[in-house]
């Protein structure tokens, strides 16, 4: 393998990794505060791409307006899901919320299948995202530069929000202990709802970027990104926002390098992600950047 080929693979890895990173931010934020895996995150991503699709098709919006429309709609949807499916279970065993999340995920998937049909549809691709940049033999599309920039901005924004604002402080307090936070005068219902809304907005951004890179949408489009990005979040240290970004890039680059260096194993690519997940969980359950949390007895 020559150097240029390696660079090309690296670029491919960064391109995929930045998408994982972007989606993993939303995952990890929700987990960090609520301590539960939002199984339906992948389905929220899928719906965001459909909102863009219909925004353009039915309301003939320009693409940027459709993106904003989709982000707003997805946030509201996320807020709704939290109210209906998760809030009533806040005092139940964690497993109940997980089951509820699995239920939401299947409900959205099947409902989409009934409403949108199963045939894949083409996602819009405005030309600024598809421009080619060539360095010698290495070819990179402009979206490969745009996605990491967006991921960086969102990373900064979310970190700032969580660490430096009053709302962020309330979020962190809620994450530590619901009851104590309540005693401190924090309206935890509002904080959790806000977290979810924000998490869904992040999912929408991730979904839109995903659609721009891989312009095919159908009701199952969110499942794999959902799982992979969860893995990325765990690898980086779930609940840790910079960790999610790091995990996303790592997973993306490793997947591409696996395919590039061991072509005989290309069929095992998805298995690789899960193997990585299990290894990380066993060796360093808190992830690369996560801190050790003592378990409450």
């Amino acid at each position, binding site marked *: 393998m020559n150097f240029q*080929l390696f660079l*090309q*693979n690296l670029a*491919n890895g960064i*391109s*995929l990794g930045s998408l994982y990173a972007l989606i993993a931010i939303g995952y990890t934020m929700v987990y960090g505060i609520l301590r539960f895996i939002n199984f339906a995150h992948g389905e929220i991503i899928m719906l965001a791409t459909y909102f863009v699709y219909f925004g353009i098709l039915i309301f003939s919006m320009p693409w940027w307006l459709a993106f904003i429309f989709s982000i707003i709609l997805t946030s509201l949807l996320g807020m709704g899901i939290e109210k209906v499916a998760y809030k009533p279970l806040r005092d139940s065993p964690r497993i109940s919320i997980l089951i509820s999340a699995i239920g939401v995920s299947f409900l959205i998937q*099947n409902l989409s*299948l*009934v409403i949108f*049909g*199963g*045939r*894949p*549809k*083409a*996602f819009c*691709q405005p030309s600024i995202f598809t421009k*080619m940049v060539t360095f010698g*033999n290495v*070819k990179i*599309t402009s979206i490969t530069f745009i996605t990491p920039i967006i991921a960086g901005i969102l990373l900064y924004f979310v970190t700032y929000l969580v660490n430096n604002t009053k709302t962020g402080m309330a979020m962190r307090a809620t994450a530590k202990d619901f009851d104590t936070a309540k005693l401190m005068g924090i309206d935890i219902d509002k904080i959790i709802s806000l977290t979810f809304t924000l998490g869904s907005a992040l999912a929408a951004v991730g979904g839109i970027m*995903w659609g721009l*890179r*891989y*312009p*095919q949408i*159908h009701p*199952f489009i969110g*499942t*794999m*990104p959902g799982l992979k990005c969860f893995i990325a979040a765990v690898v980086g240290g779930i609940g840790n926002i910079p960790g999610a970004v790091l995990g996303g890039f790592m997973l993306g680059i490793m*997947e*591409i*390098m*696996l*395919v*590039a260096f061991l*072509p005989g194993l*290309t*069929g095992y*690519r*998805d298995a690789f992600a899960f193997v990585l997940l299990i290894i990380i969980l066993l060796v360093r359950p808190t992830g690369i950047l996560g801190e050790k949390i003592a378990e409450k007895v």
Partner: protein
Amino acid sequence: MNKKTLFMVMAVILIGVFAITGCGQQTEKSPAGTDSDVIKIGVYEPLTGASAAGGQMTLEGIKLANEMYPEVLGKKIELVIEDNKTDKTEAANAVSRLIEKHEVSAIIGSYGSSLSMGGGPVARDAGVPVVGCSPTNPLVTLDNEYYFRVCFIDPFQGKVVAKYAYESLGAKTAAIIMDASNDYSVGLSNFFKKAFIEFTGDENCIVAELKYKTGDQDFTGQLTSIKELKPDVVFAPGNYGESAILIKQARELGIESVFMGGDTWEAPEFLDIGEAAVEGAIFSTHYTEEAPVTEVSGEFLKAFKEKYSGNEANAFAALGFDAYLVVRDAIERAGSADPQAIRDALAETKGFKGATGIITLDENGDAEKSAVIKKVEGGKFVFVGVVDPE
């Protein structure tokens, strides 16, 4: 108290369930039992689940055929449609239900070879013939004298593409990217490989053999390793959505080889998703608009465009259309709605003119017919040639 209520709730639900099944049965059975003016043909297709798209396309064709030819032997043909949810267990249940509950005379289906294999044994045990529309896996009709199909099978299709690549494109080297989780893609790739090695006489003509899995979206890793090898053609059969994205990424990476695939590519979405990137892609399929194989082809195309306004007809709809006509023809020749008689008539289908070509069913129940080669040009599927079976 609590337990009692629970018990009552359970009892009510159970009774309700059985009542529903019971009622459903009564209302459905009475017309079949008393009314001999109706001949029932069952359809089982994946209308939900991962293969929903293919099932829905096929169903469009079947319904169209039913509208155009609603009668046989002076009786009305009634379609009974069951969803198999892209699930083998469900497929077997659906066939069983069609046979036992609806007492159908023959069955059409299903998109997806694995689903067809789920339904196959049930139909064979009950002695009801099934005509598949697009299951191209050779295993479907193997060891099952009640299963037929109106499409060609993977060994033939793989060979056709290899032949075209070698003879018409002058290709000497090829790379294969297959969807390892898709039986269609795996079968086709293997037969392409075999045939291409035979044609070129060169053991090393396949420069790379790479895999992906249904649902994957990023193929840049596989494609980058192909780029250096510069094969003349890349054979990448698979679902049209994934294939279109794959070709798009290949073009972005600067791969200039010709991309080739199979009949699944013939869907308008392949063009929508692939846009300019899929220009020049070549694939084999079942029928063509430009050079209608038979007069029925033209008739089908016209009717399809009228019914599904503006939608391009696709191979699956055409095969669904043909499957229905073949069954209808067999009923006519059998002169009765008896499943066994229909099976025997089906086995003797020879030179039947369908929308996708002249169909002759061989001793395995597979169709012997010619394949059409098409190319994407100017955002359209353009006919390039016909390859006949030997």
